[in-house]
């Protein structure tokens, strides 16, 4: 595990490089999904990620999942507390001052009374945990999402969110640890901890999907849209609903038998 994580700087550099390549090639690819002009490349990355997950990440997550619940909760809370600082900044950037202040309060309470963030006292005090990142902030500001991207190991993203992620990582406290040993181990632990929370959901997605790649792409597009609107996205126009007449009068709904 020690050597499996690349160092932070090369990660940033290669992400930036991929962005440049994508910028050059994004206009290619007729016929497919309108949001996914790079589908062949994305599918190749997706296959690689699936293999890496199957043989490395998922087994590690399953081992991690055997830990007692209080340990897992503590680890989750600890990383959650580190993330709350940047979440608060993003809330402020989006003009949500109440939320931003509440995030600041969370960090203060959890870092002290919650002993370095291991206990999430703030939630119990009624300071709700939020979920923000720069990609969402950019979306809130009206920046379009750009082409869908599958990032190596990290999975679903898009051009806007990848740009956001580069900044997110550059201010990330874990990535900021100067000693590469502890930095890589902490990064690996956080990655495995995040993955372990998806155990179960991954099986469901596997079973639900006709094509897992399509399914996860749809999911990511809808999920980010929902996140940008803080879980309350306006209902999308339905291509079929317009002439369906069923919304106006449910009693006359067609009912194929």
């Amino acid at each position: 595990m020690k050597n499996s994580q690349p160092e932070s700087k090369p990660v940033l550099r290669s992400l930036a490089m991929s962005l440049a390549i994508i910028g050059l090639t994004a206009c290619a690819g007729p016929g497919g999904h309108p949001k996914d002009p790079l589908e062949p490349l994305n599918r190749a990355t997706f296959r690689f990620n699936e293999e890496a997950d199957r043989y490395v990440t998922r087994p590690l997550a399953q081992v991690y999942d055997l830990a007692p619940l209080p340990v897992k909760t503590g680890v989750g809370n600890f990383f959650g507390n580190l993330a709350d600082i940047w979440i608060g900044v993003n809330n402020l950037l989006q003009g949500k001052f109440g939320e931003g202040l509440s995030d600041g309060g969370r960090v203060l309470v959890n870092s002290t009374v919650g002993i370095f963030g291991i206990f999430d006292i703030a939630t119990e005090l009624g300071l709700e945990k939020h979920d923000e990142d720069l990609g969402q902030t950019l979306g809130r500001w009206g920046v379009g999402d750009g082409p869908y991207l599958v990032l190596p190991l990290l999975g679903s993203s898009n051009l806007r969110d990848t740009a956001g992620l580069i900044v997110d990582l550059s201010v990330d406290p874990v990535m900021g640890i100067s000693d590469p040993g502890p930095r890589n181990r902490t990064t690996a632990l956080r990655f495995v901890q995040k993955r372990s929370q998806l155990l179960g959901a991954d099986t469901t997605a596997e079973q639900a999907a006709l094509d897992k790649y399509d399914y996860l792409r749809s999911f990511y597009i809808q999920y980010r849209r929902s996140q940008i609107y803080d879980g309350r996205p306006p209902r999308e126009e339905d291509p079929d609903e317009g002439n369906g007449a069923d919304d106006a009068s449910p009693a006359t709904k067609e009912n194929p038998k």
Partner: protein
Amino acid sequence: MRKIASLLAALTLGLGLQLSAFAQSIAPDALVKNVTDDVIAIVRQDKAIQSGDTRKAVELVETKVLPYFDFAHMTRLAVGKDWRQANAEQKSALTHEFKTLLVRTYSNALTQYRNQQIDFKPLRAKPEDTDVLVRTEVRQPGAKPVQIDYNLDKQGDSWKVYDVLVAGVSLVTNYRDSFGQEVRAGGIDGLIKSLKDKNQQLDTTVSAKK
């Protein structure tokens, strides 16, 4: 008054009650809560479901949950604009296969239930509304709560679920891209066949597990 009366009756009768008898007049948020509480209570006690007995979970979903879902509506939403080009027979085949797929998948998800707590948010709707969103939140220690929301519409006197959203993602419209892909490749019949194959494949994995 009728609403309150039936709610009280539902509460006092508790477990094992036949919800369908009350479905006529029950409010949508009360309906979702009753069905959820009912199902969770059963899963909590059923060791077989907890240890991954999909068949038992499917049985539970079929008797307790299905009566409140409108699968024709769900399938129409999932297929999107291609729905119009399907004939009556194809529509009913699509509905049948999609229903089977959803029931299999989410019955299986039920076997993963481990004491998460479910909070019900207050309903924001006017009494005359015929299309509402019932919001719930699943909480577990050390993880961000997950939103699970239900879209219901009123049909005559009773409410039916026509969409489920997990973390803001519609589990129904999430299929639209791949369904569109299948229809472009093999027409409506191609989509029906893919769904059939998928269901068969799930069937064999289930029986292989036994």
